[in-house]
């Protein structure tokens, strides 16, 4: 149970409530993060302003950015963020559960080439302790063919986890998986 109760839907400003309901229709589940953030409409608007530009634009594919976010969230032990976006990788990008579980650890895995794996490992270092990222870590990513623009995007996707993990973990957001969408829980 979340440490703060979710706001009553009828008390939420119409625009914010429509965002929550729109997400639930699109994804077949409520978004407990956005629902909780409805306590603060500016915060709710902020997370909406952040997600789509970071994940759906730029030079890196969305599939890879979602994986980087999942890997970073796994590193930080955030089951809410890791679970929701791992499921997205299965449902939207065609991976199976075993693949996602392996890829997000940074291990060699089917469906993950060495260049992508280098970014996964960088994302996990950023998430674990961004102060520990060294110039050698960046050089390793470059050696795998990534330019600095792509590396900045990858770091940004990892940093995204530091935003959402902080809210989800500090308020103990629950599993928002519903049985109808074919998952019996987070993985």
């Amino acid at each position, binding site marked *: 149970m979340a440490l703060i109760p979710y706001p009553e839907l009828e008390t939420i400003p119409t625009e914010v409530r429509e965002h929550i309901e729109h997400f639930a229709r699109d994804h077949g589940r409520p978004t407990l993060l956005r629902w909780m953030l409805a*306590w603060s409409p500016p915060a709710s608007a902020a*997370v909406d302003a952040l997600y789509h530009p970071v994940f759906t634009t730029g030079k890196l594919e969305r599939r890879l950015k979602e994986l980087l976010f999942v890997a970073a969230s796994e590193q930080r032990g955030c089951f809410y963020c890791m679970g929701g976006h791992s499921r997205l990788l299965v449902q939207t990008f065609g991976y199976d559960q075993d693949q996602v579980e392996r890829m997000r650890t940074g291990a060699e895995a089917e469906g993950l080439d060495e260049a992508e794996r280098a970014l996964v490992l960088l994302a996990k270092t950023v998430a674990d302790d961004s102060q520990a990222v060294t110039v050698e870590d960046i050089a390793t990513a470059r050696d795998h063919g990534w330019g*600095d623009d792509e590396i900045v995007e990858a770091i940004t996707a990892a*940093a995204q986890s530091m935003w959402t993990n902080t809210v*989800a973990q500090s308020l103990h957001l629950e599993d928002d998986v519903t049985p109808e969408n074919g998952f019996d829980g987070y993985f």
Partner: protein
Amino acid sequence: MPHITAADIGSWDDDVRARYERFRVEHAHFDELRAILVRFPSGLGAADDMYHRIMNEGHLGRVLREQIFVAASSVRGCRYAMAAHGAWLAGPGEIDDADVAALRAGEDPASASAAERTLLDVCRKVAAAAYRTVTADIDRLEEAGWGKPEIVEALTVVALSGWMNGIASAVGLDAGDAAMAVA
């Protein structure tokens, strides 16, 4: 020298340049970080929009939000953010240098009220390890007089600082000792 440098300013398109300058005038900090984010223009735009909403809008005062940002950045050891936000507090925020130094050192500013100290304390705990937050922390905040909207707002400032600390540290941005010494 950062691990990744800013994009060549000659390559910036007009929209990006205008966005960069607008934020610079409004907030007067994070120039280096944002110049690196120009490499990912959508990320820069998202950062600016998020920053504006979380730091400027809502129930908590701007000075308290800035204090939370410095306190959380101190926990994570991000000197770059501590220097930038500390400078804002000492300038437009009109906070004593000693209070800024205390925040950077992980302590409460002498001018903080009891309620503010409680809020800063919980925010430091969240910044260190968010999963360790427990019901008693929320109870403490509510007993100190903070409502749920204010608590959620404070947590989003901690979240925003995590986002910015993560990027700043990963690209190797640091503040020199001189910047840290001067509030």
